[in-house]
């Protein structure tokens, strides 16, 4: 799960909340649904040797799930996203809002309502 101490608001896009490799994997899984490891390395253009550890971490953290497929006498992992992009966005937003309200209280809430009026 996203940890608040890993959030870096000066980064771009998803890399604010995930490492660049985690973000690339999640983006591909959300776009494609189920993917084999070879398809993941092709889409993300990151070699397996670089993403193997990250895949383990994403599965352990519950963002991705994988099953083992045996095809033509070879074993392969097939990955799938556990949460949709919206569900993850909602989790991150709630976490950040909670932390803002926790720290700034009324001022944070006033700013949220100003923000929603503007939108």
């Amino acid at each position, binding site marked *: 799960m996203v940890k608040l101490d890993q959030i870096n608001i000066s980064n771009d896009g998803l890399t604010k909340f995930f490492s660049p490799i985690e973000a690339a994997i999640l983006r591909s899984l959300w776009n494609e649904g189920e993917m084999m490891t070879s398809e993941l390395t092709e889409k993300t253009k990151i070699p*397996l*040797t*670089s993403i*193997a550890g990250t895949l*383990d971490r994403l599965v352990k953290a519950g963002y991705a799930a994988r099953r083992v497929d045996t095809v033509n006498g070879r*074993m392969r992992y097939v990955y799938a996203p556990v949460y949709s992009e919206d569900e993850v966005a909602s989790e991150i937003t709630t976490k950040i809002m909670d932390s803002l309200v926790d720290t700034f209280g009324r001022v944070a809430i006033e700013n949220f309502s100003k923000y929603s009026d503007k939108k």
Partner: protein
Amino acid sequence: MNLIGEINCFGLCLKLSENAPIVGLLIVSSVALLVAGIMIKMPKHRLSMFVSAQITVFLAIISTFYLMKCEGMLTIYLYFGYALVSSAIIFGALRFYDRVMIKRLNAKPIKNVLSWIQEFTGGLANATVYYYDSAVPRAFAAGRSVFVSMGLLEILTDDELKAVLAHEAWHIRNNSRTPFLKQLAVMTFSSHKKDELEELADIFAVEIAGSEALSSARCKVDKVFI
């Protein structure tokens, strides 16, 4: 008797004893064997030289104890206690380390899914192959078991996999001997020559699967960043 007093006593006894030259000779020979070992290229001979050096150090320790001709010394009791505990760990607990790893990694026997891997490894050593859930390509041997990760099965070709399995099978074949090397290293307060054992396992893997398969497997596995 206190420890510092005993250590001073060792020095004095060595100085006075007529057997002191034997201890000196053993120490000089162990240094000579160590130097010769560094200069030798063949891993098998380098390992033998290193082990001979360790044996002479061990003999030097035992002869020092002998020439003390003294009973009830704390250092001697400590050394034998250390020997007993370490051999219980090395010859006892480490042999069953694979049972611990099977539980910890939730490893499953590979014969149920890819039987040729078990048959191939079983033909080289009396070992059971297990696979475990991880995308990071890894293989290792413990006790009478070889462990391979799913990531390894994914990225290696059959020939590369054979090279890795042969390497691990060599470790299992020599598992009856390696605990003695570990014990000797512990008894002489030195390290055991892991690199040489790895080199010998690689030589065996080349004999079984060819150098090309081994080097390409090594190249794929070594590039992994965790």
